[in-house]
C-alpha cells in the first residue's frame, strides 16, 4: 500500500491504496464520488471519462498512482454554485439521456471536445464520440445537446 494524493474537483484528496488501484476505483470507492461509472472492462464504453490535468481520459484505464499530483475533474465538479454546467443543462433541455448510465462520461467527453474544438459541427461531434457508448438514446439527442451547448458557450 502507498499513499496517492491528487486534487479532485478542486479539493485535495489522498488515500492509502494498492498499486493496482485504478483511478476510477480511487474516485468511487475511496472518495465516494459515484457519478463516474464503469460500463465495461475493455476500455471501450467511456462511462468512466474524467478530466486529468484538463484532458478527457478513461479513468478505468489509468492507475490512481499515474494521477499522483494531478488535477482531476469528475462529473460532480462541473456544476457551480448549484447551477448546472451549460453541457449538463443542454443534456436536460434536449433529452440527451434516458437511463443516464453513460451520461457522466458523455458530458465529460463533451466538455473536453468543446474546449478543443469550439466550432463543432455534427460530423465532428459524432466522430469525437467514438469512445462513448450509449445503449439507450440512439445518440441523436446527445449530438443535439452537445451542438447546442457548444453554441451557447461560444
Amino acid at each position, binding site marked *: 500500500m*502507498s499513499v496517492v494524493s491528487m486534487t479532485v474537483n478542486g479539493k485535495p484528496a489522498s488515500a492509502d491504496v*494498492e*498499486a*493496482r488501484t*485504478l483511478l476510477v476505483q480511487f474516485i468511487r470507492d475511496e472518495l465516494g464520488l459515484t457519478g463516474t461509472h464503469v460500463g465495461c*472492462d*475493455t*476500455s*471501450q464504453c*467511456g462511462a468512466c*471519462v474524467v478530466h486529468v490535468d484538463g*484532458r*478527457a*481520459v*478513461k479513468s*478505468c*484505464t*489509468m*492507475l490512481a*498512482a*499515474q494521477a*499522483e499530483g494531478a488535477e482531476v475533474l469528475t462529473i460532480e465538479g462541473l456544476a457551480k454554485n448549484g447551477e448546472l454546467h451549460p453541457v449538463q443543462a443542454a443534456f436536460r433541455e434536449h433529452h440527451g439521456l434516458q437511463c443516464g448510465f453513460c451520461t457522466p462520461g458523455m458530458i465529460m*467527453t463533451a466538455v*473536453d*471536445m468543446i474546449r*478543443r474544438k469550439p466550432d463543432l459541427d455534427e460530423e465532428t461531434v459524432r466522430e*469525437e464520440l*467514438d*469512445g*462513448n457508448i450509449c445503449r439507450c438514446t440512439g445518440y441523436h439527442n446527445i449530438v443535439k445537446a452537445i451542438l447546442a451547448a457548444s453554441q451557447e458557450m461560444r
Partner: protein
Amino acid sequence: MYQFHYERPKTLADAEALLGKADDPKILAGGQTLIPTLKQRLAMPSDVIDIGGIKELDFIRAEGDAIMIGAGTRHATVAQSADVQKHNPALAVLAGGIGDPAVRHMGTLGGSIANNDPAADYPAACLGLDAKIHTTKRLIEADEFFKGMFETALQDGEIIKEVTFPHPEKAAYMKFRNPASRYAMVGVFVSKGPWGVRVAVTGAGQNGVFRVSEMEEALAKSWSPDAVAGIKLPAKGLNADLHGTAEYRAHLITVMAKRAVAAAG
C-alpha cells in the same frame, strides 16, 4: 489485476536501473494497452515501471529533413503538432485517427510500436516512412524492428527513446476500420521520398505489418492509383476472423492502396 510493485522514475537512467533490478518488470507508458491486459489478468509482471513521468521522452523536434518524436509523446500531441502537420501531414492524420479522443490523450508512440498489435496504425507509418527507432541500447531500422504479431526486436530492459521520421515528398494513410473495434481491418501507408517508394500494410498480415514490394515497384514507375489497381495480393498469410475472410482483406489492400495514392496526390 494481479498485485505488482509500482515505480514512477523521473529519468531514463532511473528507469533503466529499475528495469535491471526487477524480477519480471513491465514498462508502463500510456497504459492504453497494458492496463486492459493487466485487468484481464493476461500479464503478471512483478514490477510496473511507469515511464509516463519522464520528461525527456516527451518532445517533437523538426530538424533538417526529419522529425524526431519522443517515445512518450501522446497520439493527440502528434496529431496537433504544427511541425508534424507541416512536414508530415499523413503522420498527423494517422495519429489523430487512433482510437478515440480519450485513448489519444494517454496512448504514446513508443507504447504503440513496442506493442506491435497486428492492427495498430503507427507500425504502418514507421515501416512506410523508413523510420529509425532509437532505444536506450541502439538504433533499429523500422525494417528490422517489427518481428511478427506482438513481437519486436526489443530486448529485455530496452526502452524506446525516440523515432526519427524522415520527411516524405508524398505520403498518405488510409484505413478501413472495423466497425465495432474501430481498429484497422486493413490500413495502407504509402510514401515517396529519398528512400524511394514504400507501401506498408497493417491489420491484414498474420505476422503484423508488412511491405508490398510489387506495389512499390509499380508506383516507382508510375505514381498513380491505376498503377496499383491491378495488383492483387494472395490471401495466403492474411488474417481471417469473424470480421472478414483473408480474401476480403486481400481485396481491401488493393482498394486502400489506391485510395492512399490518390490522397497523397
